[in-house]
């Protein structure tokens, strides 16, 4: 059984420490793939001075756990972990971290990308950007939906 972990939290995280934690207790891994998402300074040419990340408590964790479980069905993973921040965030700050370990690199790369693609389209988070022109809810991107669909097509 792969080691799975999900954390939805207001406070920042340290990618290096998360990678150490991902490896703790296992010794068979040859590969770790990680992804870190940041608040962009200039999102779609609108200045963003800060961002509020809303979520659906309870469902968020369940949704991410379900994505991690699906990833372990598809690939031989040793461990997988997701950390996602909520609340107020400023440009340049870390929002999300995904880490996956496995014996060989193919599984880590694919599972890490799969988890991000499903998190983007399934986990109930919503971003509101607050900038000089006021605040607005970020619209979902069709490209995210298309990216998630690629995995269904390759099933």
């Amino acid at each position, binding site marked *: 059984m792969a080691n799975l972990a999900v954390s939805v939290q207001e406070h920042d995280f340290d990618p290096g420490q998360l990678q150490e934690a991902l490896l703790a207790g296992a010794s068979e891994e040859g590969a770790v793939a990680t992804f870190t998402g940041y608040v962009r300074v200039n999102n779609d040419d609108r200045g963003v001075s800060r961002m509020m990340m809303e979520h659906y408590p309870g469902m968020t964790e369940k949704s991410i756990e379900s994505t991690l479980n699906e990833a372990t069905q598809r690939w031989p993973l040793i461990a997988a972990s997701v950390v996602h921040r909520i609340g107020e965030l400023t440009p340049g700050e870390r929002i999300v971290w995904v880490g996956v370990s496995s014996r060989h690199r193919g599984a880590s790369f694919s599972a890490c990308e799969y988890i991000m693609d499903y998190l*983007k389209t399934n986990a109930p988070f*919503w971003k509101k950007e607050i900038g000089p022109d006021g605040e607005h809810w970020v619209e979902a991107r069709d490209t995210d939906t298309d990216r998630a669909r690629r995995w269904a097509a390759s099933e």
Partner: protein
Amino acid sequence: MIRVLFFARIREQLDCASMELEWSDAVRHTEGVRAALIAQGDARWEAALLEDNIICAVNQQVVTAEIELSDGDEVAFFPPVTGG
């Protein structure tokens, strides 16, 4: 009783994060809940809840077709997600 939750843009449009509907035959399925919510609100409720891309979740699972409910279920309405 059905507990109803709203998130993000929908929550702001309705100026409502959550409410409770009394358990009755009218709310035995998700479309009944939607109709009951529209009936008890003004035009904003109809506009928000009939939006094309609004997502409905029952007990924290997204549902894509009308499904039956039980007393005590949690129903949520929200826009497409934008996390990560």
